[in-house]
């Protein structure tokens, strides 16, 4: 019995089914996403990242920040993501596929050893505080297991006695101020650019029962906001 070609055809068929379902179909549905213009604010969303933040995205990738941090917030009522304040939208729907339109690569992450960073730019806009945390995480959270990223910083000038360290230094060690390298500055710019706050109408509303999952007032608010963004139109 020469069933060799049959094994090949069987594998081909099975893989083709999976390919059509999980590669082609999502591509047809989501592949042509465009920026949209919000009627409520007039802004286009999502923004393309500017120079520094764009470089910072590559620093985030190169150092594997996504090994410990996710960038996806599950919808309200599904897990504690929203209740923890990680969400950026005042709606049931949180992260949606449009949020990642300009991410290269899209680093959604799979594990939360550290907090979710999808909206870190809404929670912290001060680059220096972020950089201090990156330089020495245990200063802000004594039991943090985040490694200190000392290699992203360098020794600055030596401070004379009584001289104040400059504003962008993150620490003073042995009389020298510690300043971020360009990479670290770019990383901070990227983190600040992480915000998923524009209201967008979701492709399919998630399967929640808002009456059970969230208090009624929130559900009403969410319904109202969903109505608002119903009127989003594609940008020119």
């Amino acid at each position, binding site marked *: 019995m020469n069933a060799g070609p049959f094994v090949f055809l069987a594998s081909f068929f099975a*893989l083709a089914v999976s390919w059509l379902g999980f590669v082609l179909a*999502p591509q047809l549905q989501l592949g042509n996403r465009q920026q949209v213009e919000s009627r409520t604010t007039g802004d286009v969303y999502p923004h393309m990242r500017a120079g520094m933040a764009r470089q910072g995205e590559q620093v985030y990738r190169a150092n594997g920040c996504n090994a410990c941090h996710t960038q996806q917030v*599950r919808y309200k009522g*599904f897990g504690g993501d929203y209740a923890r304040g990680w969400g950026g939208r005042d709606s049931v729907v949180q992260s949606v596929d449009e949020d990642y339109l300009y991410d290269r690569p899209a680093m959604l992450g799979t594990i939360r050893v550290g907090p979710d960073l999808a909206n870190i730019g809404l929670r912290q806009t001060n680059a220096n505080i972020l950089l201090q945390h990156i330089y020495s995480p245990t200063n802000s959270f004594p*039991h943090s297991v985040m490694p200190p990223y000392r*290699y992203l910083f360098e020794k600055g000038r030596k401070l004379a006695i009584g001289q104040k360290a400059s504003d962008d230094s993150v620490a003073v060690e042995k009389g020298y101020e510690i300043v971020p390298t360009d990479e670290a500055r770019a990383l901070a710019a990227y983190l600040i650019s992480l915000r998923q706050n524009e209201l967008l109408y979701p492709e399919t*509303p998630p399967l929640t029962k808002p009456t059970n999952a969230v208090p009624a007032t929130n559900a009403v608010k969410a319904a109202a906001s969903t109505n608002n963004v119903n009127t989003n139109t594609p940008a020119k």
Partner: protein
Amino acid sequence: MRATPSPAQSLPASDEGISTPVPAAEIDASCRAPILFLLVSAAVWVVISSVLGMIGSLKFHAPGLLADSAFFTYGRVHPAALNALVYGFGMQAGLGVILWMLAHLGRTRLVGNVGIVMGGILWNIGMTAGVLGILGGDSTGYQLLEMPRYATFPLFIGYLMIGIGALLTFHTRRERQLSSSQWFALAALFWFPWIFSTAEFFLVGHPVRGALQMVLDSWYVNNLKTVWFGFAGLAAIFYFIPKLIERPLYSHYIGLFVFWTLALFGSWGAIPPGSPLPEWLPTLSIMGALLTIVPILAVAINVYRTKGDCAKIKESRSMKFFLFGTLAYIISGLAGAVMLLRRVSVVVNFTWFLPAQSQLLLYGFVAITLFGAIYHIVPRLLQTEFPSKGMICGTFFLAAAGILLYCVPLAIGGILQGLGMNDAAKPFSEVMNSSLVFLRISTIGDFLMLLANCLLLLNLIRIHVRAGRTVAAAAWAAHSNTAGVRA
């Protein structure tokens, strides 16, 4: 793989040799160089992987460890360790074992040895470039596809060269009847080039936009873990367990049923609910994942019925590797299916439960099964026994204890972490601190796995030394004989 009838069939009995099975010793002689090359380099990679994994694990005890070097930061060491385990060890050793099984099941010599060795060299060049690339900061940022573009070309070409050798060997087989192991092995061979080229093309070559990257990456990872490693591991289990106890596989048709259901639904369960994607994707994933429970149970039945209460189980040293591998496959498969259910996923997604499940599959199932296969194959290739039988058992117990001490604490810690994270009243740092204990226990597991891997490599080195000595002694004896004659 040709659709037309092979010459072997169209020329009946014109050549006696073409349909008579090749003796096993001769098959092993033909396999020697290429398969030893693949298996030994795989053993080197599994040691590298566990050293990197150990560095990563120690960072949870002392986050400041090696913090001044970008090379060894956790975000680089961790994916490097995983890639070394998956591609350096799992796929390389898997290919070696598949080649050996295809030759033996087809009762034919290995074909294309030079190509296979060249392919193996390219694969290792690609691996070295890839792992150094990740450590150097060139990671692509996609899970299990972290190796940079320049590393993927040698990997891909190397795979194709090894794969062509496997197909040629299969094509010249003299035993025409196919076993279910051959189905699994062949399908695995076809599977990888397609998923790998698709994923590389749409993620690294011409990246798709936005969240689609996540869909593609998850699709690839799931195909690789569930289908490629599932098929390669099951091919070994369905081959070695019956062979070691000298009984036929309970049912060839259950084997085929497992093949079809896994091939069709195994690659679906990739996308957890709550992902920023249209809702039909997670729904379809959950459906596919639940459907894979059926083949997993079928594997359990088939192995259990084959094994029976056979007395031979205790006699065979490698048997425990395969039985443990089967058990790890069943547990990790069921956990992988159940963890996609909405009610479970809401707790365990994004926690340490995920790495625990994944490692149980990749190490508990794939690596331990392949260890057993290596311990079975290498003495036959070198025609000598392992110097120490105790060290084979040692590898097994260290590896088994290691994976258990890794998975169980992380799974428990992951569930607690998930419950804690969903309770918004608890500060995040408190949730992390409570799961830290489990993380730190898992370091012991990492350490035991490192020891097991070193033991495997050491055993392989020792058997080579022993075989080399035998050859040298024979050569010396032959030399002194001739010298004596001359004198």
